[in-house]
């Protein structure tokens, strides 16, 4: 079962992956150090498919794309936050880390809750608490990028078709 990892407000990209590891961009290597300055046990205890439930301004700070890559490499399937910092949000979409905004889902969640996320329906279910929460839908333009598989295939397709999408 995908379990919740609850983290506070203003978790910045230096905490998600400290600069000392930025000499690699390999998700698995980065994942081994993900969030270690916040919780040294996270990277070893997190399981494939787990969910990070964050407060406000998640991913603030540096523009390092290594941050969403580290979360992916650690096995995180989706980050649910009260709000995201802008650059992190773009980087997540571009690199294929699922992100969604749902303040009410974060509100009642505790560490270890069984969380199920339906991104197509924009719904978060907390199966431990038996609650269901709306998540904010992505703008259609971003859904296009997600549907294409990220920004790299989206641009490749657009350029190949002469600048039209």
């Amino acid at each position, binding site marked *: 079962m995908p379990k919740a990892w609850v983290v506070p407000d203003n978790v910045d990209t230096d905490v998600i992956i400290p600069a000392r590891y930025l*000499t690699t961009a390999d998700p698995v290597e980065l994942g081994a150090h993900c969030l270690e300055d916040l919780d040294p046990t996270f990277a070893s205890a997190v399981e494939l498919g787990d969910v990070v439930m964050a407060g406000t*301004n998640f991913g603030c700070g540096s523009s390092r794309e290594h941050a969403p890559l580290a979360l992916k490499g650690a096995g995180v399937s989706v980050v649910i936050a009260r709000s995201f910092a*802008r650059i992190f949000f773009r980087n997540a979409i571009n690199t294929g880390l699922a992100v969604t905004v749902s303040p009410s889902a974060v509100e009642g969640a505790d560490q270890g809750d069984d969380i199920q996320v339906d991104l197509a329906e924009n719904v978060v279910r907390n199966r431990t608490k038996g609650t269901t929460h709306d998540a904010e839908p992505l703008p259609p333009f971003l859904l296009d990028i997600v549907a294409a598989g990220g920004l790299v295939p989206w641009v490749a397709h657009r350029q190949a078709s002469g600048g039209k999408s």
Partner: protein
Amino acid sequence: MSGQTITEKILAAHSGRERVVPGEIVMAKVDLAMANDITAPPAIRALEQMGCGPWDRSKIALVASHFAPAKDIASANLLTAMRRFAQEQDIEHFFDVGRGGIEHILLPEEALVLPGQVVIGADSHSCTYGALGCFSTGVGSTDIAAVWATGEIWLRVPASMRLSYSGRPGPWVVGKDVILSVIARIGDDGAAWMAMEHTGPGLRHLTMESRLTLTNMAIEAGAKSAIIEPDDTTMEYVSERRASTGRHLPFEVFSSDPDACYERELDVDLDTLEPMVAQPSLPSRAIPVSEVRSGRIDQVFIGSCTNARIEDLRIAAHVLGNQRIADGVRLMVIPATQRVWRQANDEGLLDLFATAGATVSTPTCGACLGGHMGVLGPNEVCVSTSNRNYVGRMGHRTAQVYLANPGVAMAAAVAGEVVHPADVCAAPPPRVEYEEVAAVA
């Protein structure tokens, strides 16, 4: 129909539109697309995966700044990847070690960022360039690769926050204090996803260097961008940099309509402002320097894209005078660019710092991001002129970082703890622009 902000006008002009409104997504043409030694290598890989080459070799800037000169073999590999790409693709603006410095101070110096442009940088502090009256924002590596491939970027037009400055800052107050006081008021995400537009008569008293600090830290309030309408100070700087570099790229000056719409407005009185210090471990934890109780400190770092320009080093040197660095304190001075380094050297500042017991390094981001040149160990306390004091930012997660202006930082180096610079230096630093403006005001 209401008027438009400077940000909306620049984005409209770059996306072939009459007008744009906050919230809509536009494809904007980009005038300059920058990456550094950490963000360029993944971008180069993404560009290859897109099956594309650079759209315009004269509109890409590559800067060796973060782990440069190479701090280990892995960072040497990053620098090599960027160097090779620059050579193979004949990138016009490649600034290698010894020829550049920290991008956010370098690109304005090089007259590569100019009023009215759209500038995109693969670095979060790319918001700095807005001090020149352009739209500029930070993105990640894949986004910058998309710009390199197409010359365009998708942007959601930001709502604007207007900050109106009145009064005149006191002699110890510079741009750093102004922006720290704003972040303390609005919070670390107080301008989330917005354009911070700095306006008002108080701005006349801020030098170009102070303004670049003001826009530099927009990201620490969560903003997408920051902008200042070009005025005489801006145009003087732009003319001087164009003449000095011989680079005469075209530009256009935009300004906000009087009836433009703002999502939020804030008045800031500069008269009452004291030098501000952000306590560990968030920039929003800034309080007046007189209220800070830091206890003994271990290190002072005067550097970074926030405060390592010549004006910053002059202020630090003024506060230092002929004093020595306190026993038990290490002072690292890292001028931001080769040009700043040489100017500081010509003025005797570097010798003054070294004589007092400081280390003076070649330009690099260095200690700012805990990369090299002064990484903090467990429980160490540092006063830094940089922009982020997050947990683990400058080294060990238990290290404590205070953010301050260069005068306050140097005073801490002399006193061994955070003090008001007036406690170690009788006369405030001379402020040429400030006096001139005051005389005609």
